[in-house]
């Protein structure tokens, strides 16, 4: 790798703002967010509840549109894309992991992953994805037969199986104890390293920030601070 050329930008937002209007009340969820992320970067987003983290992640994940400002993924202008274009963007480039695993209960682990590989362009085999998250031996179990942590790892397998350019995770360990959470984080870092997927992780757990390249702190709809970790910890080294 040539150290002279910086890795290409994957995400870029300019003055990103989001206002929710419910009747008379206006909620400014985002008040001008300028953000960039490079290919292969592992970014942790921190911030108090209601500071706009999820709103931000949803917009750059193509689930929602900003009220004003710009959001770019490579050369896709996400703020001006049609619904269909956003759907295609999610399908082709984005892997999501959410706090509430959002697995399809009527499909087994393998089938939940296959759900995505069937519509992706260059997917890996579902078995491979499940191996990566350490669930190679539980592939034919249905969600209800798996623990929360296992379900979350299936969700990660499902997210990575399409070899996404970006992996967006909203409190992936929020519902898990620390031991299980470590396994999930381990899966995320391994995917980040082996596929070079730009990974954004929202968490309430400041300890987790140590595993990131960069930590972005949100407050009141803005980015309050950005820190770069000189040295990263391995997931098994953090506890909470």
């Amino acid at each position, binding site marked *: 790798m040539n150290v002279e050329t910086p890795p290409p930008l994957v995400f870029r937002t300019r003055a990103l703002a989001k206002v929710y209007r419910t009747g008379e009340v206006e909620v400014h969820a985002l008040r001008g967010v300028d953000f960039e992320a490079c290919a292969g970067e592992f970014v942790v987003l921190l911030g108090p509840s209601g500071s706009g983290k999820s709103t931000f992640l949803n917009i750059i994940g193509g689930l929602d549109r900003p009220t004003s400002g710009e959001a770019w993924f490579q050369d896709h202008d996400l703020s001006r894309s049609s619904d269909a274009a956003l*759907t295609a*963007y*999610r399908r082709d480039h984005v892997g999501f992991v959410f706090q*509430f695993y*959002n697995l399809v*209960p009527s499909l*087994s682990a393998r089938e939940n992953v296959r759900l995505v590989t069937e519509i992706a362009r260059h997917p890996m085999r579902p078995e491979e994805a499940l191996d990566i998250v350490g669930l190679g031996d539980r592939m034919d179990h249905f969600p209800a037969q798996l623990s929360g942590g296992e379900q979350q790892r299936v969700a990660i397998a499902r997210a990575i199986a399409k070899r996404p350019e970006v992996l967006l995770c909203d409190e992936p360990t929020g519902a898990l104890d620390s031991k299980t959470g470590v396994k999930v984080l381990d899966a995320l870092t391994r995917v980040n390293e082996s596929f070079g997927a730009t990974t954004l992780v929202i968490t309430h757990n400041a300890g987790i920030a140590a595993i990131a390249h960069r930590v972005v702190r949100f407050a009141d709809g803005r980015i309050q601070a950005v820190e770069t970790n000189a040295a990263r910890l391995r997931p098994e080294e953090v506890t909470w």
Partner: protein
Amino acid sequence: MTSALDRKLLRDLVRLWPQALAIALVMAAGVATLILGVGAHASLSETRAAYYERNRFSDVFASVTRAPERIAARIAEIDGVGAVETRVGKIALLDLSEMPEPASAIFVSLPDLGEQTLDLITLRSGRTPLPGATREVVVSEPFAQAHGYEIGSTFSAILNGVKRELTIVGTALSPEFVYALGPWDLMPDDRRFGVVWMSRAALAAAYDLEGAFSDLRVRLLRGASESAVIEEIDRILAPYGGEGAHGRKDQLSHAFLDAELTQLQAMSRILPPIFLVVAAFLVNMTLARLITLEREQIGLLKALGYSNLAVGMHYLKFVAAIALIGAALGSAAGTWLGTGLTRMYGDFFHFPFLIFQMSPSVYLVAVGVTLAAAIVGALKAATGVVRLAPAVAMTPPAPARYRRTLLDRLHAALRMPQSAVMTMRHLVRYPARSLGGLVGIALATSILVGSFWSFGSIEFMIDVTFQRSDRQDATITFVGEREASAVQEIARLPGVMAAEPYRSVPVKIRAANVERRAAITGKPDDPDLSRVLGSDLAPVHMPETGLALSDQLAAILRVETGDVVEVELMAGDRRTVTMPVAMVVEGYLGLMAYADIGTVNRLMREGALVSGVHLSLDETRREALFAELKAIPAASFVALQRVSLAKFRETLAQNLLTMVSIYAGLAAIIAFGVVYNFARISLSEQGRELASLRVLGFTKAEISWILLSELAILVLLAQPLGWLIGYGFAVAMAAGFESELYRVPLVVNREVYAWASLVVVGAALVSGLIVRRRIDRLDLIAVLKTRE
């Protein structure tokens, strides 16, 4: 101040309004059908009973060639006879200048001295003729209306071969001509057949019946034996050419009216209960599902400390609100439609007044059944949920036990996409729900089949009757019997291409202890115009000896080919003979017996006579022929089968079509309600799953298909089942329609099934589109914020 729970109730109703409305409409359709069907039948029956009573409709009827007036006194002395009236009654051709085709009327005398005692006419305008006035007549109101006649209008009639000009002095209605049907006609045609009342003295003079009568009417005392009186009357009248007295059952107008009411009753006895049960089932199923969806909320309410009773009441109120809206809508619609239907039939029958009979018990039953169905459905679901511990209720209903099944090998073998696997598993995983949906949709199809089938059957009956059996263009009925040479005379008239005689003799046919009045119609060996059809609907030869009985008559007499029946001639020498049943033939109208015309003439020992002649006409020379026919003294009535057919269709279009359209419309509402609710609830159940697929990058079309393919599979699977059940309904209705006068063949052709399915599939498509629009608006982010 409303409690929080009540506010939730209102919000839920507002939030779920399309579904609540759809359920309410299904209920309303069930309620309305029962109310309108039972109401219309009860109203018309009541009206008829009151009309008969007020106008003193006779119980026993007899015709003679000529009987001296004094005989009436002997009849009045018969045990059980309450009142007797004699009169002159004759059918005659009219000569109406404004109308090319020949018309006829039945001429009935009005007493010159005193009032009518039986079969009173209700004057609608003008007055009755002055005693002895030879030119003054009262005509039936529908006949006057059909011709635009007013008081003072004139027309001509050929009475006993003499043309007379008559002046209308009044119009009237009578209970004995509610259904004013000309011989060989199928439907009353007020243009071509009317009733004319004249002074007794004038009419008697025209027919040389001074001091005598041709018609006898008797009203029985309460509890009198009709058959005993008839037997006695027959004995007294036999020497005067009596054709045999008969009761109301064989009075033309009454019999047809009765058949119509029987049909209406069959409609109201069979269809509405089915509708009601179907609606109840659907409401029950839908509400149960809707409440199961509320499971988490119920758990939460309980966790917050609400008692089971409070929670149960909350959902009961929710359901009761929907049910009451449905019941109110249904009662209003049912009353409105029932009144409209009663008016329509009342107009058709020309009842002088209508009595609307909407009994409260019908409303109670209809509303009660739907309400009960709704509440039972709600309770069943609510108790199931309430019984759960709050913690369990708040977690989703364990869809835990998805197992690998045989089906999975199939998926693997077919390399089905995972989305299809989802659909299939979902169907199999909730068998009760899938089965409920399947049965619900099948029932929707079946009630449509049950509503539509009669159209096809009647078309079939028309085709058989007019294309294969009675293919003549016209039938001339002679005044009394004529020499066979009369046929040649008719055949020579302009425009007549073929003439085929028939001889008709009134008889009583007996087998064992069953007896029926009927006519034996003698036909040429191999009739070409008015043909008799075998059970395979192919024309048959007349038997060389013995009778061909219509299957209905054979069934009533319980005889088969090879049996013998006793035949009592009601004309001529009035012998009783035994005759073999040579064959059983097809027949939808009336109780028919056929024989070779030679057989009939030998039977009557009167030489070769004919009663009338069937004609095939050259349409281009109709006018010329009609002009000649109007002047033929021998004819009393000319039936025009093509005109009859048009009239038959038109009347059917008016009555049956309206009726069936109402039922079909209500069935369509039910179909839509079922399918829409099924789709909507599926969406609620799976909305979260579908939204998360959207997040994964599935397009709207793809996830819509996951949901809608499930609906599509159920809709398709339900169709054959629906056809089967619908056929069952048709069988029940055909049996209910059957009267001795006519029988509706049970023909459920492919179009019926196709139309029923088309309506259901259409309802499914519309529901699909509505649901599709909701899928398009699924809130992806909201889904991610909440746990399952």
